[in-house]
C-alpha cells in the first residue's frame, strides 16, 4: 500500500458563488466519494478561501497563497491505496472532476519507511 495526496483545485469565485443547492450537491458528491473509498481515506479537509492564506519566504511574510493563480487549492484528501489506478478510479468520483472550472491532482507521498 502507498499513500497519495489528492489536491483539489478550482476557481475560487465559482466556489464562492455556489447556491445553497449546488453546495448540498457538492457535499453529497464528497459523501459518496468517502463511502466508496472507505478506510482508504486517512484524512481530508476543505480549506478556507485562498485570501485567508499567509505565505512565508526568505525575510518576508505576506498575505495570500504561495502561487497567485485563478485556480486555487480548495481542499485535499490523504488516501491509502494499492496503486495509482485505484486512486484514479476513486478520485474520478469527486464532484470537482466533473465541474468545468476545477480538477484534482494526485501526488504520491514519499515513503521513507
Amino acid at each position, binding site marked *: 500500500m*502507498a499513500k497519495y495526496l489528492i489536491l483539489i483545485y478550482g476557481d475560487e469565485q465559482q466556489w464562492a458563488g455556489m447556491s445553497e443547492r449546488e453546495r448540498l450537491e457538492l457535499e453529497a458528491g464528497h459523501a459518496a466519494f468517502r463511502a466508496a473509498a472507505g478506510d482508504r481515506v486517512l484524512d481530508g479537509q476543505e480549506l478556507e478561501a485562498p485570501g485567508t492564506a499567509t505565505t512565508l519566504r526568505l525575510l518576508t511574510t505576506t498575505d495570500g497563497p504561495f502561487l497567485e493563480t485563478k485556480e486555487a487549492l480548495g481542499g485535499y484528501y490523504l488516501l491509502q491505496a*494499492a*496503486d*495509482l*489506478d485505484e486512486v*484514479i*478510479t476513486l478520485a474520478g468520483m469527486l464532484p470537482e472532476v466533473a465541474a468545468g472550472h476545477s480538477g484534482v491532482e*494526485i501526488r*504520491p507521498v514519499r*515513503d521513507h519507511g
Partner: protein
Amino acid sequence: MSVAAAVEEAHRREWAGVLAATVRLTRDLDLAEECAQDAYAQALQTWGRDGVPERPGAWLTTVARHRALDVLRREALLRRVLPLLVTRPAHEPAPADDRLSLVFVCCHPALSREAQVALTLRLVCGLSTAEVARAFLVQESTMAARVTRAKKKIATARIPFRVPVPERLAERVGAVLDVVHLVFTAGHTAPIGAGLVRRDLVAGAIGLGRMLHLLLPRNPEVTALLALLLLIDARRDTRCDAGGRLVLLADQDRTRWDRRQIAEGVALLTEALHKSSPSRYGVEAAIAAVHAEAPSWAATDWQEIVGLYDLLLRLWPSPVVELNRAVAVGLRDGPAAGLAALAPLLDEPALATYGYLSAARADFLRRLERWGPAATAYEEALALTDNEVERAFLAERLASVRRL
C-alpha cells in the same frame, strides 16, 4: 536459417512476451530488461551449439527468468533504489498474456505522450534507445533520460503492471491506439531525413497492432486501427519510383499494391464496422479502403470519400481532417472548388506551418494554370518540408510551373 537470423526473428516476435513474463517475476523494469537481453545473448551461443529450440520464446523466457532469480537471490539484501512495480493481487487469476500488462504500463495516461511512445518502442517493440532516439530526432542521451524518468515515475507513482479494470479499459485502449498510430505515422512519412519511410517504425506499429488484435480480439477500435495500418502500408512498394522519387497516390502502379494485405484490411474493417458504430480509426480505414479498391485515381468514388471525411470531422474534429476533406472536394468538383474549400483554412493557426496545406493549394492552382500563385505556394510548401524525398518532388513541381 542462420543462428543470428533465428535470434533476430525471435527478437522481433518474442521480445515483448519474454520481457513481460520476466517483469512479472522481477517487478522491476530495468532488471527484467537486462535479464531478457542476457537471454538473447545466450541464445546466440547456445543455439549455435545445440540448434534452435522448437519454441524459442519459451526457451528465452525460461533463461531470462532463471537469470532474474539468480540476481534477485544475490541482491536480496541490497537496498533498492526504486520501489517494486505493483502487480495484480494474488487472488486475481493470472492474465492469459503478460504482454498486455506491459503495453498498458507503457501507455499509462499519467505518462506524457512522448514518454509513452519511447517506452512502448523500447519495452514492447524491443528497439534500442539509440534507435528510438533516431526515430524522433533527439540525442541518444536525451532519449535515455526520458526513458529513465518515465520508469522512475512508473515505480514511484505505482503505475500498476496489469490490465485496467473494465470501466477504464475503453479509455486506456484509446491511449494505446493513439501511441501505435503515432509510431506508424512517424514511420510512414519520416518527418525529416533522406528516406521517405522508416521501415522499423512501420513494422513496429503493425506488429503492435497485430499483437493488440490478438489479445483484444473483440475490441472494434483495435480491429479498425489494424485495418487502417494494413490498408495504408499495402501501397508501400509504389510510393517511390526506382530512383527514389516520390510517386503520388494518383500516379501509383496499383497492380503492385499488396492485394493480400488489402483483403486482410478490408475483412478486418468489415468485422469492426459490424460490431459497433464507426470510430475515428474505423472511418480512416474506410477512406483507405475506398482508395485501395478503386481501379484508378480517376475512377475513385470522391463523393464517398467526401462523405467519409464529413463523418470523420464529426467524430474527430481537427484542422488536418478539414484539409483532407477540402482536397477531396477539389477532386470531386474540380480545382476551383478545391481552392475555395481550402480558403477558410488559411487562417487556421494549427496549420500555419503545415506544409501539406501549401502543397494542396499549389496543386489546385497549377491545375487552374495560375502559374505565378502556384509557384509561390510550392515555395511555401518547400520551406515547411524537411523530408528529402518530398522536397525533391516539390522542387520539381516548382521548376515546372516556373517554366510556364
